[in-house]
């Protein structure tokens, strides 16, 4: 298992390098322009100077090499310096700078992480916690009232887009009833009971929207996987041996059913970090999703490049984690 993990990690390096090059090339070929947001009153000569200051006048390969150096050498060194307080060399090195804000990209990402993890992460956690029992009961009592209602809600949650449910909830709960704020306050510091209540209130609507979506998606997988296993021979054997129904269901069937579900859940974790672009926009959570979409709209290439690359790293990593978990859940699977 250990050598397998090491081998996979080493193999990830060329994969990630290739990914970074492809992202960089794609962004370079895209026709959007970082200066398109500027008012037309800024004359062409000045635009040329701004372009040069961003380094856009340099050839493609040089820009790519610079980004590699900044991302793989300068940024880790900078993080190391900040953690240890040591200074390596002069301590002055070019960091990956966003074009729109002219500030280090990594700082922007660090700033956006908390609200994304709170809102998107929490809704994913709720989604998983709700989906597994719903899926298990739905499968065990197939075609019962519970299953029918569960299926109906899952279908609604799956097919109604979050930009609709989000705005609907705002109109009902913020505009009419005025129970919850429609705008997320990223500056809120939770240090007292009242600020905690405030935090819960402002998280309620976006978390609700996303939980509905996540639950519907995962509960369908759990249900389908449970149904596959419930009709297996080993289940009949267990029952014939007189094993208690609870043990049959929760130990034998559930454990085997979780194998495909774990893959789905593990591969879904990187999407927490990429944020929920639409929901974040609707509620102004301004997390990583909003950061990514504004960067794409403003053609802030260093920011888009860095963010997408970090997502790529997470996806590769969680693929590996899913594979390792396979081996733990199913003793038949051995990699060595």
């Amino acid at each position, binding site marked *: 298992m250990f050598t397998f993990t090491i081998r996979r990690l080493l193999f990830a390096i060329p994969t990630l390098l290739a990914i970074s090059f492809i992202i960089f090339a794609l962004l370079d070929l895209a*026709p*959007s*322009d*970082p*200066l*398109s*947001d*500027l*008012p*037309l*009153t*800024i*004359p*062409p*000569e*000045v*635009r*040329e*100077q*701004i*372009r*040069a*200051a*961003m380094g856009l006048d340099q050839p493609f390969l040089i820009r790519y090499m610079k980004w590699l150096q900044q991302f793989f050498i300068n940024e880790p060194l900078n993080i190391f310096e900040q953690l240890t307080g040591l200074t390596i060399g002069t301590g002055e090195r070019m960091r990956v*700078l*966003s074009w*729109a*804000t*002219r*500030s*280090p990209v990594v*700082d*922007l990402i660090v*700033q*956006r992480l908390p609200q994304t993890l709170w809102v998107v992460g929490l809704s994913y956690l709720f989604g998983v916690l709700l989906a597994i029992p719903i899926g298990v009961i739905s499968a065990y009592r197939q075609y019962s009232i519970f299953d029918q209602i569960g299926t109906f809600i899952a279908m609604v949650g799956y097919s109604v887009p979050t930009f609709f449910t989000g*705005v609907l909830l*705002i109109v009902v709960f*913020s*505009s009419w009833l*005025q129970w919850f*704020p*429609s*705008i997320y*306050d*990223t*500056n809120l510091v939770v240090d007292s009971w009242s600020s905690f209540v405030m935090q819960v209130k402002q998280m309620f609507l976006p978390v609700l929207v996303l939980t509905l979506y996540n639950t519907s998606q995962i509960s369908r997988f759990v249900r389908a996987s449970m149904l596959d296993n419930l009709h297996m021979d080993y289940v009949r054997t267990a029952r014939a041996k007189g094993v208690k129904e609870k043990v049959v269901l929760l130990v034998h069937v559930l454990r085997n059913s979780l194998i495909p579900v774990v893959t789905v859940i593990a591969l879904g974790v990187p999407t927490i970090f990429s944020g929920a672009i639409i929901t*974040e*926009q*609707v509620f*102004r959570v*301004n997390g990583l999703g*909003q*950061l990514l979409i*504004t960067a794409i*709209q*403003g*053609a802030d290439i260093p920011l888009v490049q860095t963010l997408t690359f970090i997502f790529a790293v997470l996806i590769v990593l969680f693929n590996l984690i899913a594979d390792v978990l396979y081996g733990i859940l199913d003793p038949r699977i051995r990699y060595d």
Partner: protein
Amino acid sequence: MKKLHLILAASAAALTISGAPAMADRGTDGDLKIIFWQAVSTMNPYLSGGTKEVYGASMVIEPLARYDETGALVPMLATEIPTVENGGVAADLKSITWKLKPDLKWSDGTPVTAEDAIFTWKYCTAPDGGCAQGAYFEGVSNVEAVDASTIKISFTDPKPYPYSALVGGQSPLIQAAQFKDCLGIKAPECTSANFGPIGTGPFVVKEFKPNDVVTFTANPNYRDAAKPAFATATLKGGGDAASAARSVLETGEFDYAWNMQVEPEVLATMMQAGKGKIEVAFGTQVERIDLNPFGVDPSLGDKRSTKEAGPHPALKDPAVRKALSLAIDRDIIDEAGYGDNGKPTCNILPAPDIYVSTAVDWCLKQDLEAANKLLDDAGWKMGSDGIREKDGVKLSFLYQTSTNSVRQATQALVKDMWSQIGVTVELRNVSANVFFGGDPASPDTFQKFMADVQMYTNNFDGTDPEKYMAGWMCDKIPSPASGWQGENIVRYCNPEYDALVKELGKTGKLEDRAVIAKKLNDMLSNDVAQIPLIHRGQPSAVSATLEGVKMNAWDSELWNVADWSRKK
């Protein structure tokens, strides 16, 4: 005795007048909540140039003088506006001398001096800095300190309109001490200074989260001890225009929302909640349709849309151009897409009032009969398919614009109007960040204009139209030689026009300048260089509980945020 009475009465009157606006003391009105759905990326307008950054920064850093809601210059850091009459502008128009208000302090308590002004000029003109407001310092040969509070700006050539450097929200003063190590290539590395510039304005940046939210506190050293009325301010960003409007007009969570580009009927429904209203300021924005005078047929290859391609087979005919303008019903377009935020216009120079021509209003009223007659007389015969034709050339055009719901609705209306005079158009829309991006490698930019007609909005900063009108000169036509850069997107070229622009550059008197500017405007409209459609306003949503907002299209909308207060 009688005299004493008079003086007493006069001073009492003066007291009541000057006392009236200062109803509140500094910091008594709590938190001011502003929403910019396009979030602020940096607080340094020299590094960004975007309108949202200029507006956000205007709460903190200020220029020597700025434009008020009527477009008149008002002194901010200066004691008065220098003119030739008061001796502030040299008689040869080659220099301007500003005097700083006495005892001005930065928010950190240090005095504001002429050195800061000199530094600001150096900062924006430093090589490799890519200063976004470089145009404001164009033609400035030197900035010097006559004494600690007197700034002399010299120009290479006489400047009839010398109010550009350090005037208006786009070129505010920055503190030399804070930015001294941030010149040129180092400018973007000074993140903390760029995110929290020390200023002279009513507010100080407390925390800046780029593209998200800015929090401010009142400036303890602001020059008016009674202002600002608000103790803190929050400038939130993100989302879209409609939900920003809702947060002011319906839920009342915010006090002010900028740039409400939302369909008029949606706003009207929201306003029924009675929590606020939309205020509109009219600046110089004109939505226009450009008509390409050069050939754009794909068979022309690299020559498309350049002089080498030769004249456009249909649009070279003045009758066609005029008919296209006459066939448009601007009132319908205005009603459908703009409501109170727009007015039909035939002028490409729609404001300030002194420059507004009334000589070209022939196009204001739709006249299909006249348009059809023009085309008939010019020999464009109606074909069996309802499309006019002459010598094998059909009046069939490609009509492009940026992707935006109002623009697509306008395209559909214009298409219908033109079909009534035998002109057919194919509609196309290009994503705004490509269309306005100016990437020389992309064929879809508005500068390249690889279409017969295209639609967008343009305007100019401040109130002086000289630079804007110079944008129609022959040498400003974008071409491969100029890397497709140049303001003359419509590719208008008329030696008479060029000569008149040069004359404008030599004329100092405002009245004479207005006469010339109107003439230039009329030339463009009568030659139908382009078709002006709508004079667009800037709509913003203002809460009913907010007082003192004076919508301003000539400078930052937050120009007088120091005077805003909570309605009691």
